[in-house]
């Protein structure tokens, strides 16, 4: 929606060279790629799944698949959006499988180790703690997540991808293969719906 083409979406020649180095067996280049994109990949998986262990497993699986598929990377998208798309797809698969499992249907996943730690009054904050996650009580967080889950899947995906500072509308459009205008409309619709839900539950 900007006046000029987004600087992050220029020709991805460097990414193409990088991918071909990895495809030709350059392990150091692959490790560098993992270091660079692991935080983004983990954030995407965590925001979609809401569970640390699931997110770690999905990201590990995603990078193994990415390594195997490097030879097919053509530079039509950036490595960033290509990787994010793979992580998104695997996270959605995991979410679907999880929804079918008895563990989740019975609600046994609620109240995990992270939540217990968050409840302790003097709990040490990890040096890797993210600033956004602080200042919300466990209960408020759970209530907001339950309302986010009530959104239609297409709106939920755009809302969660946009909650990552690193992704622009143009990049979200590339990841989801929808026009930028559709990203903007879905995002606004998601915020309006969620805003109404939050207000009706006294959270806004």
């Amino acid at each position: 929606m900007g006046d000029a083409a987004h600087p992050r979406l220029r020709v991805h020649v460097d990414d193409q060279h990088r991918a071909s180095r990895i495809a030709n067996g350059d392990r150091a280049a692959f490790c560098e790629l993992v270091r660079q994109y692991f935080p983004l990949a983990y954030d995407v998986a965590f925001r979609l799944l809401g569970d640390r262990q699931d997110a770690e497993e999905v990201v590990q699986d995603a990078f193994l698949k990415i390594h195997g598929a490097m030879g097919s990377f053509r530079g039509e998208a950036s490595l960033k959006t290509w990787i994010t798309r793979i992580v998104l797809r695997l996270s959605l698969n995991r979410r679907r499988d999880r929804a079918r499992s008895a563990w989740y249907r019975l609600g046994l996943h609620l109240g995990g180790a992270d939540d217990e730690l968050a409840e302790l009054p003097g709990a040490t904050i990890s040096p890797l703690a993210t600033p956004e996650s602080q200042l919300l009580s466990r209960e408020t967080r759970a209530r907001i997540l339950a309302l986010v889950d009530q959104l239609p899947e297409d709106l939920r995906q755009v809302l969660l991808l946009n909650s990552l500072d690193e992704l622009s509308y143009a990049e979200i459009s590339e990841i989801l293969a929808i026009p930028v205008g559709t990203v903007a409309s879905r995002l606004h619709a998601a915020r309006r719906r969620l805003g109404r839900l939050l207000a009706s539950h006294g959270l806004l």
Partner: protein
Amino acid sequence: MIDWRQWRDGGDRELSAYLDDELGRGRRQAVLERLALDPGARAAFATLQRTDELVRRATAPADRPDPEAAVSRLQAALAARPPAAPSYAGHRARSRTRVLLHPALIASAGLLLTAGLAFVELRRRGRL
């Protein structure tokens, strides 16, 4: 001067885009003017802003695992993988060999050879 009628269609959506810093300079200026003049727009914008803030906070991970640990796990997983699959050309050559050495094919060839030899022998003795 702002044409307020245009806001009924796309104006609220532009508030969202403004919140995400996704508007060009011209549209951004128009949104700023609207926010300065319209209390309803200011209220709508505040709601969008608060909603966005709550989503970011509620969905963010409490912390992130160390990328180096992930790198080590991936290196171990790649090292434990079986060697790469043979190329298509090699696979095709091996498939052809496998077809030629198939027991049914060998048995059929043997039968044909026996029948051929028997036919030649019978002709030689003048019985055919």
